[in-house]
């Protein structure tokens, strides 16, 4: 599966990140490590990114997913692309 197969979550995450920390987005945002070793985002940006995504999923798609817990369970480090794919997979299962 390519990064762009999970376009909606990926786009939502990228939009939020563009708002919170545009300077932190590299030329290939899918490869940006958002959590774990090698990550460059401020922890506060990560927290706000995850909570904003949770809120979007809840309000627009009525999906209640604990992304904070979910992120911590993923093998580290986690890129933005991987994270979006995993969330998509989780939604598909639900």
């Amino acid at each position: 599966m390519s990064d762009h197969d999970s376009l909606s979550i990926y786009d939502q995450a990228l939009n939020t990140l563009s708002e919170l920390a545009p300077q932190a987005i590299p030329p290939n945002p899918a490869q940006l490590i958002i959590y774990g070793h090698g990550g460059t985002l401020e922890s506060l940006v990560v927290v706000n990114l995850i909570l904003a995504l949770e809120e979007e999923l809840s309000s627009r798609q009525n999906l209640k997913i604990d992304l904070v817990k979910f992120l911590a369970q993923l093998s580290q480090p986690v890129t933005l692309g991987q994270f979006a794919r995993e969330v998509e997979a989780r939604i598909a299962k639900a």
Partner: protein
Amino acid sequence: MKRADSKPVLLYGDWYLDSLKLYFNKTFVEAWGLEIISHEFSTFESIIHNLETTEGRSAVIYVDLSLGSLTSTGNDTLEQDQIGERVRTLFDTAASRCDLFVLSLPTLVDASGLLSENYVCASNTNELSAQSRVYEEVVQAVKVHKNAVAVNAQIKIADSNLKQWVVQKSRYSTSELKTQARVLERLIERAFGKPVKLLICDLDNTLWGGVIGDDGPQNLRLGGHDPIGEAYRLIQVKLRSLKDKGLLLAVSSKNDLATVEDFILNSPEMILRKDDFISMKCNWNSKAENIVEMARELNLSIDDFAFLDDSPAERAALAAQFPSMRVLENDGTPYSIFESISACPSLHTLAVTSEDKLRSGFYLDEAKRLGLKSVAPDSSEWVKSLGIRATISQDFDEDSSRVVQLLNKTNQFNALTRRLTPAEMSDWMKTAKATCITVRAQDRYGDYGLIGFATFFVENKVLALVDFVFSCRAMSRNLEECLLLQVCTAGLARGDALGIKAEFAETAKNKPAKVFYEKYGLLGSSERASDVKTLQCRLQVMCKHINVIGA
């Protein structure tokens, strides 16, 4: 890195403010040169008290206050008088250390609708009175301090998002943080941005629903038991309220003038009446032509205009033709038109002066004055026929709001075109030991309000004129001469001013000031002073038809 010209914005509240900082629009922050600094509320008092000496003044201080913030553990019981005293001291100090003081005071309740114990004093019996007391202080702060505004006084369910609290230390959701950031950005624009002077409105499907020429006046949707009609009515209520605060309104509409005037006069649902508009161009000319003509007739710059129209084609055409004019974007529905008015910060001035309230009436009076001018034999006779009375004052503290407003809004008759905040102006007046002379005027047709001011100081027997600012709407009736005469008289009254010199900074727009300075030998006078006594005699002749009070 801090820019040399950065404007500090201080945010105080709970830990969530670090998150709030992230939600500011980065382009906005860059464009306005903002440096956003967040502090926990516990450090508020010490930082605020040291601000003047350690960090300089702040552009904005934003305080998000919960009663829990005022107690060290969140469980202390504070007497309401103690709370009131502490809050008042904080507010007074903060308001004196910044140009815009924003108070946010959400009422926190738990999910059952009761005042939340997490955020207010432990004793339930004290909660309500303590909360009321803080509200009283907020109202008082907004009344007393001209730079203070209160926002966000809504009820907030404090327990609705425990996870947000434990993960982010925020009682606000991310969408609420975004809203708070947008509110603050708009307030910053309102406080420090260039205000719109004139809003030009279309009529059909903009101020009422339907097309008057096609549908007929009786079939227009305005007011009544109709959501669309009610929405258009509320647009008019909103515009009327802005007009009462000093925004000028005009109409440019492709319509027959007699049909429109008849409807405006006779419809019981109309909120806006003919006298609410200083110009009504209902014709078949292009809107661009109408706008150029309005600018000429009213002696205003198109940069000071905004345009409201439901038609995307008209908006696009005018935006392309006049890039400096603000065009209010909307999707053509009355709801979106209403929102576009509410969301445009430049239409909503924060400090409303008595001159703002008089402005619209002034332009209507002016039409009568110009009618008289067309039959007067010459300019001098016209001025004489107006019966002008000028009131002179040297009370800067009393007039500071209007003086600073004039300084920042006036382009054409402004010798230096320097832009200062009220605090900067006040500081400069003290440092330079300057005097500020203001002029108000009235004539047989009405009140012009405070229309000009000059600042000066006397040094080494030379009167140094610094600002000379005059409202373009009152030019050419010798009132500018009257103001300069009062400056000369005040300088001579000090006993030691022999000469007068003035600085002048030319801009693309201040030609009227340049012509005036040239006429009275002030241009280039920063190098060699003119004789103040000679100038005074010359000005006395020019002002012979003006009755001066309080000189």
